[in-house]
């Protein structure tokens, strides 16, 4: 049994909350007491029946205001898989929320209202999915009950979407016609759409192959902290603790420490204190080296001969996430996994319209939810890849020096 993280995206009222509620409910992941509470609340609203959308409702402050902000996480499992849903609501702050939720997702469900087909929001969500390189896309064509479960309506939407997806380099796309409200093609195959030959949503989510989502070819490891017990029996022990970002490391591998460039070899690999012969992404491990070298938090260890970038001038795509706008020339901290360096946004080349992918001139400061192409200079060199090649080593955040907020998602070009 493994783990699949996915995000749901859709415009307001496309049925996202209903769909999530339906998945939780039909897969029997809602516990009796939560159900009772739900029934009570549904009654309060005088809507009659259970309002599945209420299941995914968040904090009281938001409930009172009748809006949902930010990303919430939901959990459910079937005998075959554990699922983590990042539930990012579609409101003004959508780009920020979707990026946050999508950053760890290996699949996105894009909701389309069958009556409306592919709309601007669909395109925007798909562009963000493509920018963030989410490996798998499910286009959930919802509310099929309102279009008489029509095969033609479904087919037309598929043709439209596929045309758009080709421009966006989205590869693994599945289309499922459904009614979240009535449960068609969610857990069980819909009897009203016997023309549909694909799997219902839950079965699709359970069976989708995710083995290739993690890069096991290029070795990337960054030191989180140095373990030095300094006890009598472990007097000379010096282990580099961190997560394998990508690739595989074996005992005896010749490695290079970056940015210093010093070479050594792996003398011992451990997971949770147990020696192992090899480690792979995304395991948290401890690496010991043959030679005594000065290595600290944020240093990168790769296998000798790897092609990786080292530099302090970075071409980036910045997704701005803070109310406080970005001005060219502002100073920040940049955090690349565990490496924290001072950084300045040297120049902003253009703004990317997330509805059209058009490059627009930048006029004035960069605002919340805007995506720009920018050049960043760091005080000391980073060891990185382009996001397109190795996303796990091609991403970073910017932190405001004065407020300490996380203000941008950074994708290295």
């Amino acid at each position, binding site marked *: *049994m*493994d*783990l699949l993280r996915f995000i749901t995206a859709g415009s307001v009222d496309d049925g996202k909350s209903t769909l999530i509620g339906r998945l939780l409910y039909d897969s029997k992941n809602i*516990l*009796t*007491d*939560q159900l009772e509470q739900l029934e009570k609340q549904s009654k309060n609203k005088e809507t009659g029946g259970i309002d599945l959308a209420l299941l995914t*409702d*968040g*904090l*009281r*402050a938001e409930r009172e205001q009748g809006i949902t902000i*930010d*990303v*919430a*996480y*939901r*959990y459910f*499992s079937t005998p075959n898989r*554990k699922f983590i849903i990042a539930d990012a609501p579609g409101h003004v702050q959508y780009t*920020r929320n979707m*990026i*946050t939720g999508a*950053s*760890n997702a290996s699949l996105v469900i894009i909701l389309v209202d069958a009556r409306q087909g592919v709309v601007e929001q669909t395109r925007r969500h798909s562009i963000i999915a493509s920018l963030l390189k989410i490996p798998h896309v499910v286009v959930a064509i919802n509310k099929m009950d309102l279009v008489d479960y029509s095969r033609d309506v479904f087919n037309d939407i598929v043709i439209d979407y596929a045309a758009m997806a080709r421009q966006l380099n989205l590869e693994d796309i599945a289309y499922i016609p459904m009614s979240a409200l009535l449960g068609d093609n969610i857990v069980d195959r819909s009897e009203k759409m016997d023309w549909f030959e694909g799997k219902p949503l839950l079965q699709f989510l359970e069976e989708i192959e995710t*083995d290739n989502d*993690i890069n*096991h070819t290029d070795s990337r490891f960054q030191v*989180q*902290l140095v*373990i030095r*017990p300094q006890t009598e029996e*472990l007097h000379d*022990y010096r*282990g580099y*603790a*961190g*997560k394998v970002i990508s690739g*595989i490391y074996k005992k005896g591998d010749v490695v290079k420490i970056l940015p210093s460039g010093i070479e050594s070899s792996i003398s011992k690999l*451990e997971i*949770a*204190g147990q020696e192992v012969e090899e480690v792979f*992404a*995304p395991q*948290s491990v*401890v690496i010991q080296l043959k030679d005594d070298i000065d290595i600290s938090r944020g240093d990168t260890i790769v296998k000798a001969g790897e092609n990786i970038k080292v530099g302090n001038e970075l071409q980036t795509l910045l997704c701005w*996430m803070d109310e406080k706008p970005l001005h060219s020339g502002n100073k920040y*901290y940049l955090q*690349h*996994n*565990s490496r924290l360096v001072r950084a300045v946004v040297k120049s902003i080349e253009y703004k990317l319209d997330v509805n059209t992918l058009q490059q627009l001139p930048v006029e004035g400061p960069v605002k919340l939810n805007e995506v720009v192409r920018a050049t960043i200079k760091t005080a000391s060199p980073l060891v990185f890849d382009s996001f397109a090649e190795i996303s*796990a080593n091609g*991403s*970073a*955040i910017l*932190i405001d020096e004065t407020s*300490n*907020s*996380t203000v941008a*998602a950074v994708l290295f070009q």
Partner: protein
Amino acid sequence: MTGYRLDYLEQLETESIHIFREIAAQFERPALLFSGGKDSITLVHLAVKAFAPGKIPFPLVHVDTGHNFPEALAFRDLFSAKVNASLIVRKVEDTIKQKNLTEPKGKFASRNWLQTYTLLDTIEEFKFDACIGGGRRDEEKARAKERIFSVRDEFGQWNPKLQRPEIWNIYNGRIHKGENVRVFPISNWTELDIWNYIRKEKIDLPSIYFSHERDVIEHEGQLVAVSGFINMDENDIVSKRKVRYRTVGDMTCTAAVESNASSLDEVINEIIATRISERGETRIDDKVTEAAMEDRKKNGYF
């Protein structure tokens, strides 16, 4: 197809270890808030793994309400010694005396709310900048949006404005003086994940998690242990039942469930079969309002 894949418990474990290491590296004085329950025992187990073969680089802190199960306290002392962790205990009793606080009254007078004072005092006393807790997002609706690094102001309060987007696996733990971060390394685990992990890793638990005989009274459908901490009256009927606990809290506010499950497998089977959340089943004080948890989070309880 490659052989390089992790099952879901290994994925959760590796993520939690990564978080623990970020805490140790980013903060000067972290502390692990240890309640003695299965979640915090699992947390400590993960911390041991994260820093092996070194020792856990922060203390375990227990805020003792004085209403704990003696079995849980005995376990706490043995367990912290076994994993070679330093243990700091601070008593709500002392805070009540020092601050001249009013003891809560009522049938199940709970010191749960007062814990916050002791906790905040302890943070102040040791200048802790990060407090690690066993909160999980599946526990309660109000927690579904909780960050893994959750920033609190000087009063220990949660404020939506201070919360940061958590993107990829990059954790921003930078704070201003006086602020404090609550970190939840097992945010993404569900109750069942915890139980399955405990089984897989053969983690020891306090005996009250397994079926045992106990004198209880029945109150609004829930079984409450007879102890010096609850106020009994003539309507209470004491009976001896075979029970176990699903969470370890105070004797005043944790209800027992009737059970013959004496092994981990049996306990897990029962939990799967009951389909009632642990909070719903065993917390006496949470039923008050739907937003009880949220209020407490705001007040710095967690």
